[in-house]
């Protein structure tokens, strides 16, 4: 009796277990594949509560259907114009056909190693057909980075989607630079360029300064010459005024003017070095020669 009860309980527990394996919750993040005795029979994409046959018959395998990132190590490439560059690329991908994925790749690790091969060859081919100026350019039209990355994405997709059941959403160049070996020559060029720019700035400074100085000298010359002109005009006015006043005054008696002006000039040019020879019959001395006489009124 007791033994029978134990058997019944065991059977119930087993039944509950089997029933519980017949139902499973499929999360929004996942896709499921149902395997019947190891053979894939169904792919379930929509989330919710799902039914399958109990455990030994059917088992489920879950895959993440969200975007995954694969970031291979940075690799050296050669551009079309033979520049050694190193590019760090990442890939966004997701599983779109879990059955194909399961058959061809099984795990994410295997998928990533396959992705690495594909991206290496695609990037090598794509970068190799573009010049460095397609990646870096300060021209008006800009770089072709977006185009190059879109090209790599579509190239990868073409190879991968039908074969492995995964979709490449995006291939992006994270970093891009010259290789370590090339950097010294790049630095030398940068150094020379900076020196040139510094020289240019200084020369421009000197040029502007010289312009300012010349302008100042021009202004100064103009100011001085204008002042000279004005001063000459003023002097001329003075001279003219003076001449007018003299003329007005002396016109009253030109003869007398001549007389006193002459007297004054005598005062000026006769000095101690002068010798004057007087004739004794000169008006000054005629008295001396003739002696006193009454009628001496010339």
């Amino acid at each position: 009796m007791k033994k029978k009860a134990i058997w019944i309980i065991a059977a119930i527990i087993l039944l509950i277990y089997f029933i519980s394996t017949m139902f499973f919750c499929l999360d929004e993040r996942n896709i499921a594949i149902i395997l019947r005795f190891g053979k894939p029979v169904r792919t379930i994409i929509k989330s919710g509560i799902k039914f399958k046959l109990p455990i030994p018959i059917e088992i489920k395998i879950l895959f993440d259907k969200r975007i995954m990132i694969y970031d291979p190590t940075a690799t050296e490439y050669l551009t079309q114009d033979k520049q050694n560059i190193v590019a760090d690329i990442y890939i966004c991908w997701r599983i779109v056909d879990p059955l194909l994925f399961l058959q061809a790749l099984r795990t994410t690790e295997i998928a990533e190693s396959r992705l690495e091969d594909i991206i290496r060859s695609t990037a090598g081919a794509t970068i190799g057909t573009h010049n460095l100026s397609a990646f870096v350019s300060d021209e008006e039209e800009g770089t072709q980075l977006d185009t190059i990355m879109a090209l790599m994405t579509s190239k990868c997709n073409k190879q991968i989607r039908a074969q492995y059941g995964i979709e490449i959403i995006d291939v992006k160049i994270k970093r891009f630079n010259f290789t370590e070996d090339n950097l010294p020559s790049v630095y030398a060029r940068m150094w020379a360029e900076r020196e040139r720019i510094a020289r240019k700035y200084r020369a421009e400074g000197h040029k502007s300064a010289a312009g300012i100085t010349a302008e100042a000298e021009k202004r100064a010359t103009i100011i001085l010459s204008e002042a000279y002109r004005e001063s000459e005009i003023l002097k001329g006015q003075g001279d003219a005024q003076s001449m007018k006043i003299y003329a007005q005054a002396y016109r009253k008696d030109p003869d007398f003017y001549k007389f006193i002006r002459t007297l004054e000039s005598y005062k000026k040019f006769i000095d101690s070095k002068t010798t004057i020879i007087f004739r004794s019959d000169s008006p000054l001395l005629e008295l001396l020669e003739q002696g006193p006489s009454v009628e001496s009124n010339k």
Partner: protein
Amino acid sequence: MIISYRKISIVIIITIFSIWLLSGIYVVENNEEGLNQRFGKLIQERIPPGIHYHLPCPFEQITKLPVRKTERITIGFKPTKIDTVPAIIKRLTGDVNVINLVATLQYSIKGATNYLFSAKDPVALLKFSSEAAITKVLSSMSVDYALTIGKVDVQNKIRGVTQKIMDNYGTGIQILNVNLHEISPPKEVSAAFRDVINAQSDAQRFINQAYGEKNATILNAEAQANGLKKSAEGYRQDKINRTLGETDRFLNVLAKYKTAPEINRKRMYLELIEAIAPGIKKIIVSSKLDTNLIKIYGIEEGSNPLQPKSE
């Protein structure tokens, strides 16, 4: 006894059932957003802050995300003293210069559903996208622009490009801002870059000096010009005053002279002779003397300048 066993087990079952039911009560905090999945299927999203109820495990599952919280990541590479910065860390600008950039990026979760279900690791994706954005933004800029006036532009463009990439992936991440911490040339060439800045300030200094000298030159010229004008005015006034003085004197003398012209004339003449006579050598020659002797002195006969003119 049996009855009481049964009672106790009923009470226990009811208690456990009520606790199970009550475990469906949950609180969405103030800065959070909740979403509800029934058997893994999303049935409700954007559950606002507050107290809510859901069917307890295993029926429904609640996920809460801090949507209004600002998170921060560092992008670019911050070299420390020990690091020798590998080439791949640095960036290339449009004019093929190598520079280094470090920035912080602040973001928050815009849509919890997208954040949870679109990408396996949204934050890693954000970091990668922003790195790609930096490379893209710098690749079409000149190094001078990026290092000087373009800094704000660099920040805005990195933010814009990163946001576009993230929206493309549908990650539900909102980038709030990008702050440049450092944007600098590699230390191998930093001295040359510094010299360019020095050269700019040198140039400015030359110009400022020239302006200073210009002001001095012009002020100097104006001072000289003023002097010139003043002295000319002085000259004019001097001339006029002297003339007025002389003519006044003349007119006064003339007025007096007119009263007795002949006498005054004589007197003035004699006064002059008296004034000049003491200092000079005088030779008096008789009128009967040979005038040839006089010619030796180069004076023509009868041209004695001292002889007053008769009227």
